[in-house]
């Protein structure tokens, strides 16, 4: 038993509970808060997996950016009808059956598979620096191209979002 193992179970239980609450809650704003909780647990998982930098990014982007944006969007749009989301029993049972069978099948495969033992560890003095170097390295094992692609993508998304949500867009291009 490693010292991090109890934390794994603690956060796993928390994440599962919050995820269940998130998909089942009829109240969208609360569901968003639960989602923030799940994402926070995600950051905790990254810490357990020795990826502190990733945990920080997860907090910054998911909690600071995405959760806040989601809450903003819910607040900006009106109506109590938006806040209640109650599926029909048939739909619920079907979804339950489907997701449970997916879970069962995959678990079966996971438990049946013989997982190889861990390879020897690659030591890193400063993983954050090494990641940065990898990201900006055009050569062997470098990720400069995907990095640039995703930068362009983010820029496009930012412009597209501003275009879509700019004031008056609703009247000019009615969606109906």
């Amino acid at each position: 038993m490693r010292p991090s193992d109890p934390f794994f179970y603690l956060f796993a239980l928390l994440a599962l509970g919050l995820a269940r609450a998130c998909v089942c809650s009829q109240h969208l704003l609360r569901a968003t808060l639960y989602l923030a909780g799940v994402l926070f647990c995600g950051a905790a998982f990254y810490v357990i997996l020795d990826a502190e930098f990733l945990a920080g990014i997860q907090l910054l982007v998911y909690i600071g950016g995405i959760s806040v944006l989601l809450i903003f969007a819910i607040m900006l749009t009106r109506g109590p009808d938006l806040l209640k989301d109650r599926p029909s029993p048939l739909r619920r049972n079907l979804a339950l059956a489907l997701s449970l069978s997916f879970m069962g099948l995959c678990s079966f495969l996971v438990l049946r598979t013989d997982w190889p033992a861990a390879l020897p560890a690659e030591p890193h003095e400063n993983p954050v620096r090494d990641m940065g170097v990898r990201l900006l390295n055009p050569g062997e094992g470098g990720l400069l191209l995907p990095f640039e692609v995703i930068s362009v993508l983010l820029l496009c998304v930012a412009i597209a979002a501003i275009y879509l949500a700019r004031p008056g867009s609703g009247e000019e291009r009615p969606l109906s």
Partner: protein
Amino acid sequence: MTPKTLTLQDLLRTDFAPGGGTQEYFVNMGPQHPATHGVLRLLLKLDGETLRQVIPVLGYIHRGIEKICEHQTYRQIVHLSDRLDYLSALANNWCVTRVVERAAGIETNERIETIRTLMAELERLQSHTLWWGVFGMDLGAFTPFLHGFRDREELTQIFEDTIGARLTMNYIQPGGLLHDLHKDFAPRVRAWLKDFGTKVDEYDRMLSGNLIAQKRLVDIGALSGDEALGLGATGPVLRASGVPWDLRRVRPYGVYDQLDFVVPVGEKGDCWDRYWVRIEEMRQSLALCETLIENIPEGKTMLVKPAAKIRLPEGTFYEELETPRGIFGVHLHSRGKDMPWRFHFRSPNLHNLWCITKIAPGARVADIVAMLAGLDLIVPDMDR
């Protein structure tokens, strides 16, 4: 066809149509809200942070003062006039006094008129000082509030020595003044005026020159001269819109005809002009007080026996004068008794308030606070 009367319910309809893209909603500013300085209720129709419409709703501090006046003697009415615009109690007293004196044919002497003018000007300073502090607070700067109150406090104590009251003065009475001046009055006023001259400059440094304050005021809530006249606005609000109408100058009363002063007039009628006009009025009043305090003639201060009952002849009388916030008028209908048959006040704040309905649409929530502060409203004066 009967003319349609708009009720509050009609006004409360939102113009929301599906597919419109925007959504309007109502917010109650008041009756308990820090920016309305009293129990004034403004219904704001908002779209996001932008104002679409402002609906003032009055009546939360209605006390029926005009009705009460019908059962009071003329001396008692003076007392009630304090309770309208409590920051210009002396001017209100004076206006009631003037209408009663004119109806009863009471002549006053030079000393009484000089003291009345001096007191009215000092109160203008007191009122504007308070306004300046509250104005700063409404813009979000809390420090001016306390500086304003600090300077007002000394003046209030000077008033207290002579008059015996701090807010509800009841000092200017038909036939003269309630008391003669306190023996320390002149030196204390001189010292205060000397001190206050530097304070006005300090106000300028503290708030007027501030970049944020200017950004919040310039070109916000512009009201043209015609609109101001149409809405019945008076006082600094009207003069900021470029109409040089000051009763002290156009229809002098008291000893104003012997005095030399400039009536500050704005150009655009925005919040900044209203601010600037009041600051400039402070400087002018300061100079007036400095002249007046040196030239108080000797004489009696009460020409009527205090116990005497004042009985006015039948008729209708009207007098008006310039209070710190605009024209205050008293309309008196007498049927020959010692009490009026009908007594009506024309209060400046009620008319000034209605300017907000003209200047607010299109502005932001924060702007309406700056506009209200610029109009310098006293709520008990509107509701009476």
